[in-house]
């Protein structure tokens, strides 16, 4: 029987649009961490956008189609069993498409029609398993495996782990979660806490792990987003966090952008640093700040990390 550990050693990698743009540091650090841990990533050939948070508002079935095309290529052209998406939005949309194609005949019919017209294989539910970068490292390596490979430590860095909306909601599209010990929880997710804890961080008690940053309206309703983000930043600081660890490019850029906006437009400065969890893991694995793209973040944490002896 193949275990998850075996299955996740080599996976199809779906970076998505954001990781080729503003979240380049997430892309880079994910790939570097994969290399350092000996996990293989093969990028999905000629991938397209999953539909993000926007296409569903034009038509939800189109989002299902866009996501299904990515999975179809991974399954039929690349013969892969697992697609790994580090972006919460991509991950969520592929999971949602998977669920809809397994349960809703209309979605199946629309996806089939569009795929045929577009001239590629139709994705059928169950052909691939979509996982998040957290699942990939958690099940592919695990806390103990990670500890064995550490070259440094996060030195008791106080971290608030921020998972956002799309990693856990709605529950029904994540059938593998909430299955007891060893599985992820949708109400109190802990994979990021576990991994960063294993790398030497101290996870603070942070009640807003799955709160919303207003990412969907980050530009179209900026004041709302600034309020939501400021609440997250302040709560993290009040919990004693020096760093907020993120796992989603929309959350990450939202936190960075509205941290600046709150300071410049509303005179509400906050000090907490914002880093992708893969950047923190990479540093503990002995990678240089440049290798994990710390210099690409808007939130300037280089000096702080050096002071702490982490970078």
């Amino acid at each position, binding site marked *: 029987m193949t275990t998850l550990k075996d299955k996740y050693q080599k996976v199809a990698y779906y970076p998505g*649009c*954001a990781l*080729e*743009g*503003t979240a*380049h540091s997430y892309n880079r650090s994910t790939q570097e961490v994969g290399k350092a841990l000996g996990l293989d990533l093969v990028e999905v050939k*000629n991938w*397209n*956008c999953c*539909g*993000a*948070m*926007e*296409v*569903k*508002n*034009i*038509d*939800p*079935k*189109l989002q299902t189609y866009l996501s299904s095309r990515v999975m179809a290529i991974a399954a039929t052209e690349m013969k892969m069993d697992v697609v790994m998406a580090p972006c919460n939005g991509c991950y969520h949309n592929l999971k949602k498409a998977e669920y809809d194609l397994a349960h809703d005949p209309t979605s199946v019919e*629309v996806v089939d029609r*569009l795929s045929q*017209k*577009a*001239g*590629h294989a139709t994705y059928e539910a169950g052909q691939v398993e979509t996982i998040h970068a957290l699942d990939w490292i958690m099940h592919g390596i695990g806390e103990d495996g990670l500890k064995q490979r550490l070259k440094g430590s996060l030195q008791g860095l106080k971290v608030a782990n921020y998972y956002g*909306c799309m990693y*856990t*909601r*709605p*529950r029904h599209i994540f059938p593998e979660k909430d299955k007891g010990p060893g599985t992820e929880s*949708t109400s109190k997710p802990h994979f990021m806490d576990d991994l960063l804890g294993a790398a030497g961080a101290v996870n603070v008690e942070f009640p807003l792990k799955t*709160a*919303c940053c*207003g*990412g*969907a*309206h980050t*530009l*179209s*309703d900026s004041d*709302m*987003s600034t*309020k*939501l983000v400021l609440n997250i930043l302040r709560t993290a600081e009040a919990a004693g966090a020096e760093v907020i660890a993120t796992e989603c490019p929309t959350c990450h850029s939202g936190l*960075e*952008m509205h941290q*600046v*906006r709150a*300071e*410049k*437009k509303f005179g509400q400065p906050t000090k907490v640093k914002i880093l992708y969890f893969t950047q923190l893991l990479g540093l503990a694995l002995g990678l240089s700040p440049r290798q994990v793209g*710390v*210099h*690409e973040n*808007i*939130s*300037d944490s*280089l000096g702080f990390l050096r002071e702490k002896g982490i970078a």
Partner: protein
Amino acid sequence: MPIHEQSLIRPENLTTHDQLVVDGVDVSGHWSTFIQSRVVTDYNEAMQDEIAALPGGENVHRCWQCGSCTNSCTVNAINPEFNPRHWIYLVRIGMESEILRDKDIIWQCVSCNKCTYACPRDVVPEGVMKALSHWLELKGHVKPSPSMVFDQVFSEQVFQHGKIEEGRVMQRFFKRTGQSLNQPWLIEMIKRMLRHLPVGMLTKLGLATLVAPRTSGWSGARAAIEEYVHEQEHKRRRALGLDALIEAAKRDAGPATAGEGAR
């Protein structure tokens, strides 16, 4: 009091008498506050069906008004007027006039899915909020919200190229909504972004805004998507009776123009 009756106690629906004596008892001022009687006749009986015909609104009929959606709502915590439970009730009984009072805030749903997570009846309140926003725009009650403009700018690029480039989306969105890129916080953000970036990376980012990234061999998918979008738009207009309304308006206008010509 049922939730839709909260309109009864709005200030404009209350009367007080500065001087009033009833049966020898002085009830002047707030002692004589009365709710004005009212008769509602303008129910839109098709409203629930219209919302259910739009994507996301399919399950609106399942709601049993437990209030889990509003209780868990991200936006409600910031603005108590943002009340999904209330709007779902109004949709179900067809109280269009009451919905229209909130027409400028319904689009503010941030799609965090907390309501959909909490809902015990699989109503998908997030979807209903989107359906309701669409309905308001399709019926001409509001102009497209900033969020809708953003969705369109974003989706146009996905449909056209298969991928998006964030800088482009941002530029077009700011242009279409008439906002300036020259905002202090935005400039500060870009400054901080550039502080440590190596030149090679900057060139790459700059090029991406000029040359749109695209998925190769996308033309087949683009044609299929465009055809589908067109087909769905037609279907929605028909479900809301919009084409029939336009036809009727044309017919009404028809004889009048002919009459003028004869004169």
